[in-house]
């Protein structure tokens, strides 16, 4: 089998904080990481590789040159090779243009059985790129995959997470699946793997190398435009209720009654 995994380098938003005085993002020391859901997507691909001889795993990322770091990390975990889609022309893309670019690269690769993506990237939180790649390639999809139930010749059975339960779905290959964190526990890089990964070369493609139209990529092609961005206004701090637990409890309940909440 040939498996492709779409991975994105993202800022660790857990560490991004707002300076409450200036309202600006504090970015100092915020590291760039492999998007968490993409780590689960990669792990699913590597497990298929472990179980099916002759399987190869290729990781693909679109981003600036430093996104190569996450590709090296993926190879150190066991991916066979890596493609970086990097060009000024790709910059500022929304999900519509990003999926055009990545689907363009996949059209060039041509042969594949399964494409994995993460459910969503923690910088934008859109969860749109996976399904849009599938649509561009004309292949079926299952999103929110929390278990690969069965992997057979030309078809997979997967469990799709729903808010109030799950579905078991059979899907023919080639197809695209998006991974949620419940799917597996990602492995760590091995020392040998890290060593080997640095020996490997990353293929870099620009818009000249892939079948996409100039008016389908980058910021100018993106239908959505960011009109304004701002830091959310914090809800004001209320009253700190003093006293023993009993006194505090009584005061709060009195206040609620006064305001007719009770």
């Amino acid at each position: 089998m040939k498996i492709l995994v779409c991975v994105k380098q993202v800022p660790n938003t857990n560490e991004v904080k707002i300076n409450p005085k200036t309202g600006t993002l504090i970015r100092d020391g915020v590291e760039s990481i492999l998007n968490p859901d993409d780590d689960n997507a990669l792990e699913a691909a590597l497990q298929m590789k472990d179980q099916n001889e002759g399987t190869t795993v290729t990781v693909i990322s679109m981003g600036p040159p430093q996104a190569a770091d996450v590709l090296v990390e993926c190879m150190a975990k066991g991916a066979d090779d890596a493609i970086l889609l990097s060009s000024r022309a790709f910059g500022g893309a929304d999900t519509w243009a990003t999926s055009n670019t990545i689907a363009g690269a996949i059209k060039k690769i041509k042969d594949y059985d399964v494409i994995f993506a993460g459910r969503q990237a923690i910088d934008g939180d859109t969860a749109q790129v996976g399904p849009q790649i599938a649509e561009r390639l004309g292949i079926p999809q299952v999103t929110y995959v929390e278990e690969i139930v069965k992997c057979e010749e030309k078809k997979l059975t997967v469990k799709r997470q729903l808010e109030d339960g799950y579905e078991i779905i059979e899907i023919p290959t080639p197809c695209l699946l998006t991974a949620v964190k419940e799917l597996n526990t990602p492995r760590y890089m091995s020392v040998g793997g890290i060593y080997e990964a640095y020996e490997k070369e990353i293929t870099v493609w620009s818009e000249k190398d892939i079948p996409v139209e100039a008016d389908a990529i980058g910021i100018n092609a993106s239908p959505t435009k960011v009109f304004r961005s701002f830091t959310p206004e914090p809800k004001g701090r209320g009253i700190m209720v003093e006293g023993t637990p009993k006194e505090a409890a009584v005061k709060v309940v009195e206040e609620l009654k006064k305001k007719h909440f009770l």
Partner: protein
Amino acid sequence: MAVKINAEKCKGCTLCVKQCPFTAIDMVDKKAVINDKCTACGACVEACKFGAITKEEESAGKDLSAYKDVWVFAEQRGGAITPVVFELLGKGRDLASDIGDVNLCAILLGKNLGDMTKQLFEAGADIVYTAEHDLLENYTADGYTKVISDAIHEFKPEIVLYGATHIGRDLAPRIAARVNTGLTADCTKLDIDQETKGILQTRPAFGGNLMATIKCPNHRPQMSTVRPGVMDKAQVQPGRSGKTVPVTLNLQESDIRTKILEIVKTAKDMVSLTDAEIIVSGGAGLGDASGFELIQKFADKIGGVVGASRAAVDAGWIDHSHQVGQTGTTVKPKIYIACGISGAIQHLAGMQTSDIIIAINKSPIAPIFEVADYGIVGDLYQVVPELMEAWG
């Protein structure tokens, strides 16, 4: 749209570099220079004290006037309309009146639509577009994408809203790619720009640290998925009716490539969390799983339901369906009581619009107190029993 820096006006102060959320501004020879990470968000435009940064708007150029009406995707599961649809109809009515002279419509797919059409009319739909077919009994990405994309081509709506549910977020991006338009994910606020009559879609990014307002100026329909639990539900007007319009169906078995083998409902109370008037939530401060027994007892006593922070869910103390926050459920109860929750931004993102927030935490500097109407510094195991007592 593009952001431009006027090198003559740039003083090299680096204020814009600090403000940029995307590290898209470099300093080259003491002047700010935009690099390819720029998304034209405009954060730098406001940051610059010297008027050196400007943003250019493209002109529309395309004729978009054929597109009319506000549509809501009427998601249903097993014959029951998903609660978020009524929130979309509530918001959709506001949008339709702000645009003026357009209809609020719903599009409903299924095998037996039964009285669901009537419910949509009573919640404010003027027109319900229907697609009734054996192959549409259960949601599939293939089947629904085809039917709705065809209907969009046939009837040309100006705006289409979807709930940001697991189904909405599977379906809407595929439709957006097929009909070639923009899609804004997981919106928490929608308005109409009075000047252009276009939609302004506001959503959190960077884990709730930043809000972005997004437009879709040159493509139609304008589409958004909307976070459940954020918009107010439409008022039900019993007996209200409207027009039913069946869409042209062109669906074959071979169009649907996936096969659903099983649909399982686990006993989860997701829905009651969004609808709850009182929520009592527990976090890592409970110390162990048994802490939720106290939380449950408190909730039962005051007629509330149990919520949780991600830390409590990750520890395995309680099921994910109870999680409140950015990756859990967004809630807006009358009273939210946070017990032993620190108040991380991702948690606040899902509960800070509650009417009254009561926080109990033993650390006086816990960030949860920044959003609490009433803060009690103390051990929850002492305070909660007293609250139960005082509640009466």
